[in-house]
């Protein structure tokens, strides 16, 4: 355990931690001079497009590409059998999720298509347009098979098996239990019960999935330009499955046009692209179009949850019992697996509250729909919706105000460290302080009186709250212990160049959240140089230390600490040289603003650039044995706690038009505690973007399917995302409870907004509808569903 640094004590030149410093990435991005994968053009590059299954489930009898190959510019038709000869399949299971099972998955299937939109053959051509011409001419002979579409009946004895060798359609099942739930419900003063649906939705990254693989048959080296969050993980995947040494595979991602978890998975069509590049020995590019994104990007959050909560006569929660069911598609997704979302749900339900008896079961079933996997705030929005939905129902049953009920039941700020009934270890949280801060921000009595006044005029406004916890800074307990080659540690190399400028290469990656910005701030402060002299390198497996990349909110907490330690080590190395050059003990010197200074007086003794000139060009003038390593690497991994939990609370203020069912968002507030804040502006914008992503799932977004398993959304006109006109202004407040696992004290901030927003919206809608005795519990809370709840249209 560490004492944290206190940024306020470092209020001196180069004190950047805790300040809203603009990001270094933005000047190029606002001029359209970024480099996304589709912007990269290589000599002899060809394009691949995929023939995709029109069936939810079908036997593939034959694939005939003869007609396609007659089109000038169409170069090759590739099938699953051809790729299987050079690329090994994968089975996405984690051994710590006991009993989990899935089937081997190939880059392109060998015998059967198992979801509508699955790639079944590849067409390689001189341009994407020609490849699409080729697709139209490829003749695939299918025998349609019965599809498993409804997750509720996936395990029924009469339901066909998706993979006969698995014996059933069950991927994973787990019950998380503590205390005596049955006794607690028997003794309850009141019991509330409800069924929630969180609705299948997807990430809709504006930049679609993109990959450009370049295999050089002469050198045996593979370079992959990839829009990914985890370049080192992908390097390992390509190497393993294409039977190459990791050192021969280089993954580069310069700019990534949005990811949110969508781009941290292994997609069969992307592996196929890389395998085809190896097969053909020339660069092959695949850029998904929007239609194939909807059918092949991972989906998420397709859960049905039955929840029950018991409370005593004093208004205390005594027990929570939930039964979660989720359908994940025909395969668990590699290598994170598709069981983690359900597992997260049963680990996180009830998270903010002080109660003793807990039972939560998740059942994860296979079905013939697009595979689901981890998407921003994995499991959190589901767990928070269930918990906070039950909390509001319990408050209502007791006749208590929802804030008073929460205040009575939230974990006390002085009760840490502690373990939740679900088994989660909390180092330090601030639910009570956060709620207090929220009350300062919203003027609750005023909102309630406004609500009453408006109701008298037939206008239905509601306020909804959602307290939440968020899992950040993951240790190997998340994936590594299950056998997945997913790194929880991360590294940073800091180097001082001859002109005294600094380069920091980090294993964490940038997709717009500001990773490069915060690493630059941390390193500038740690070394003691002006921030404009620090350049940050990310997203290149050949030039950055091995790391996990970006997932589960680890960039600041893990990558940031590695950068801080590498920067401190580099400063110490430079001061050791300086002490020899200046004949002063290293302890009396410091580096400030790019100068070696006298620590006591601040007097400049020598520019850092003079020290580097001597080290790099006149090393002969230094004592022969003097170490002069102006490049230092440090790695960091958390040790005490499996995860650094954060917490917060959100509030939504909205109006429901009871004639049209439309919801108008008036205002949204968030208080969150992500520990040490490195850049307040970036944290606020992560929260705001996350809230709006959560609002999308709550109100608009839905991967709708027909009963036969046909995906009914093929464009952004079918699948609605939040646009500017409908979104509210979002006010963000903070509490800072640094983690003591690191000197920096930072936890993650990227998923808090998404974790709590859907629950706050749901509770606000139901608060608005309460006088009309109507409620909605199934996302998205569309006008149709609201009118159904009001009894104005048939269900």
């Amino acid at each position, binding site marked *: 355990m560490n004492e944290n640094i206190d940024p306020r004590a470092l209020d001196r030149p180069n004190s950047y931690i805790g300040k809203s410093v*603009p*990001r270094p*990435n*933005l*000047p*190029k*991005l*606002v*001029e*359209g*001079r*970024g*480099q*996304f994968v*589709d*912007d990269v*053009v290589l000599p002899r590059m060809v394009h691949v497009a995929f023939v995709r299954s029109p069936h939810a489930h079908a036997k593939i009898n034959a694939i005939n590409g003869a007609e396609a190959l007659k089109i000038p510019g169409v170069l090759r038709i590739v099938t699953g059998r051809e790729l299987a000869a050079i690329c090994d399949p994968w089975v996405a299971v984690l051994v710590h999720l006991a009993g989990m099972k899935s089937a081997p998955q190939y880059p392109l299937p060998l015998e059967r298509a198992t979801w509508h939109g699955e790639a079944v053959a590849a067409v390689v051509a001189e*341009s994407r*347009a020609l490849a699409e011409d080729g697709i139209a001419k490829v003749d695939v002979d299918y025998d349609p098979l019965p599809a498993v579409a409804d997750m509720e009946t996936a395990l029924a004895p009469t339901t066909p098996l998706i993979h006969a060798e698995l014996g059933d359609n069950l991927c994973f099942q787990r019950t998380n239990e503590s205390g005596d739930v049955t006794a607690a419900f028997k003794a309850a003063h009141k019991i509330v019960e409800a069924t929630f649906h969180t609705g299948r939705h997807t*990430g*809709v*990254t*504006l*930049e*679609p999935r993109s990959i450009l693989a370049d295999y050089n048959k002469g050198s045996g080296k593979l370079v992959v330009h990839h829009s990914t969050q985890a370049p080192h993980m992908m390097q390992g995947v390509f190497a393993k499955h294409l039977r190459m040494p990791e050192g021969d595979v280089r993954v580069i991602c310069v*700019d*990534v*046009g*949005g*990811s*949110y978890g969508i781009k941290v998975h292994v997609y069969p069509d992307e592996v196929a692209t890389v395998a085809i590049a190896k097969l053909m020995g020339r660069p092959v590019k695949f*850029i998904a*179009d*929007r239609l194939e994104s909807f059918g092949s990007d991972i989906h998420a959050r397709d859960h049905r949850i039955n929840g029950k909560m018991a409370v005593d006569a004093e208004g205390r929660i005594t027990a929570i019992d939930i039964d979660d069911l989720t359908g994940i598609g025909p395969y668990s997704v590699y290598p994170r697996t598709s069981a983690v979302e359900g597992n997260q749900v049963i680990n996180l339900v009830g998270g903010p509250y002080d109660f003793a008896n807990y039972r939560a079961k998740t059942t994860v079933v296979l079905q013939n729909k697009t595979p689901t996997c981890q998407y921003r705030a994995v499991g959190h929005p589901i767990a928070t919706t269930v918990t906070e939905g039950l909390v509001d129902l319990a408050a209502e049953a007791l006749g208590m105000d929802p804030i008073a009920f929460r205040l009575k039941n939230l974990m006390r700020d002085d009760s840490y460290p502690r373990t939740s009934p679900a088994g989660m270890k909390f180092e330090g949280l601030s639910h009570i302080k956060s709620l207090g801060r929220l009350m300062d921000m919203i003027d609750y009595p005023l909102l309630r009186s406004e609500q009453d006044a408006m109701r008298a005029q037939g206008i239905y406004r509601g306020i909804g709250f959602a307290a939440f916890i968020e899992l950040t800074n993951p240790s190997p307990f998340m994936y590594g212990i299950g056998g997945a080659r997913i790194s929880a540690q991360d590294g940073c190399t800091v180097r001082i160049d001859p002109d005294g400028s600094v380069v920091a290469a980090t294993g964490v990656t940038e*997709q*717009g*959240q*500001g990773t490069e910005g915060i690493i630059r701030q941390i390193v500038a402060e740690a070394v003691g140089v002006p921030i404009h002299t620090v350049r940050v390198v990310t997203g290149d497996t050949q030039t950055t230390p091995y790391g996990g990349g970006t997932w589960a909110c680890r960039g600041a907490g893990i990558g940031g600490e590695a950068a801080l330690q590498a920067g401190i080590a580099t400063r110490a190395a430079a001061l050791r040289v300086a002490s020899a050059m200046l004949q002063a003990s290293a302890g009396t010197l410091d580096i400030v603003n790019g100068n070696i200074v006298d620590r006591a007086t601040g007097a400049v003794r020598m520019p850092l650039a003079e020290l580097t000139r001597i080290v790099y060009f006149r090393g002969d003038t230094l004592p022969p044995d003097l170490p002069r390593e102006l490049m230092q690497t440090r790695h960091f991994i958390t040790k005490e706690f499996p995860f650094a939990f954060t917490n917060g609370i959100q509030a939504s203020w909205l109006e429901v038009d009871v004639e049209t069912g439309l919801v108008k968002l008036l205002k949204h507030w968030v208080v969150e505690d992500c520990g040490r804040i490195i850049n307040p*502006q*970036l944290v606020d*914008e992560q929260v*705001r*973007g*996350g*809230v*709006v*992503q959560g609002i999308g799932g709550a109100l608009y977004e839905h991967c709708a399917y027909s009963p036969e398993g046909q995906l009914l959304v093929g*464009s*952004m*006109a079918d699948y609605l*995302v*939040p*646009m*500017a*006109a*409908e*979104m509210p*202004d*979002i006010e963000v407040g903070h509490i800072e409870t640094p983690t003591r696992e690191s000197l920096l004290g930072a936890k993650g901030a990227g998923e808090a*907004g998404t974790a709590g927003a859907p629950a706050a919206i749901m509770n606000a809608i139901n608060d608005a509808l309460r006088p009309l005795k109507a409620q909605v519990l199934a996302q998205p809370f569309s006008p149709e569903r609201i009118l159904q709840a009001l009894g104005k249209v048939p269900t």
Partner: protein
Amino acid sequence: MTTNSITLTVNGDQVRRDVPARQHLIDFLRLDLGLMGSHVACEHGVCGACTVRLDGAIVRGCLVLAASLHGSTVETIEGVSDSGEIRDLQDAFIARNAAQCGYCTPGMLMTAADLLKSNATPTRAEIREHISGNYCRCTGYQAIVDAVETTAHKRRSSGPKP
């Protein structure tokens, strides 16, 4: 495949190309001219990532056929960056962190610049309405609204008095 010969002005340069009849403006800009600043994202006119200026008005590049552009004038993010026309707006986006991944940003800037040309005093609601055809998954839009509002304020206070 049918091609059409077109001569047009792109970012001040006269260019002449033979283009396939089916090619849209954004593929023309990206594949034929190497102007990678305008991004492809939905290709059905919903997301606004490919917004460029055609004869002074903003259009969705994915909904305009290149073959129809003989004699036209096209301006892209590269053009308005080089000319300095929207420097203040770009600086406001940087200061306010109104771009995260940056993929929507060129189209968003072209749309915001279009608003500021016609309305020197937009309200926040008017800004939200004008950019409501430009999808941004990262920011939640508030920072973008702030940056556009700030730019309008600054232009009013520094510009010539009416």
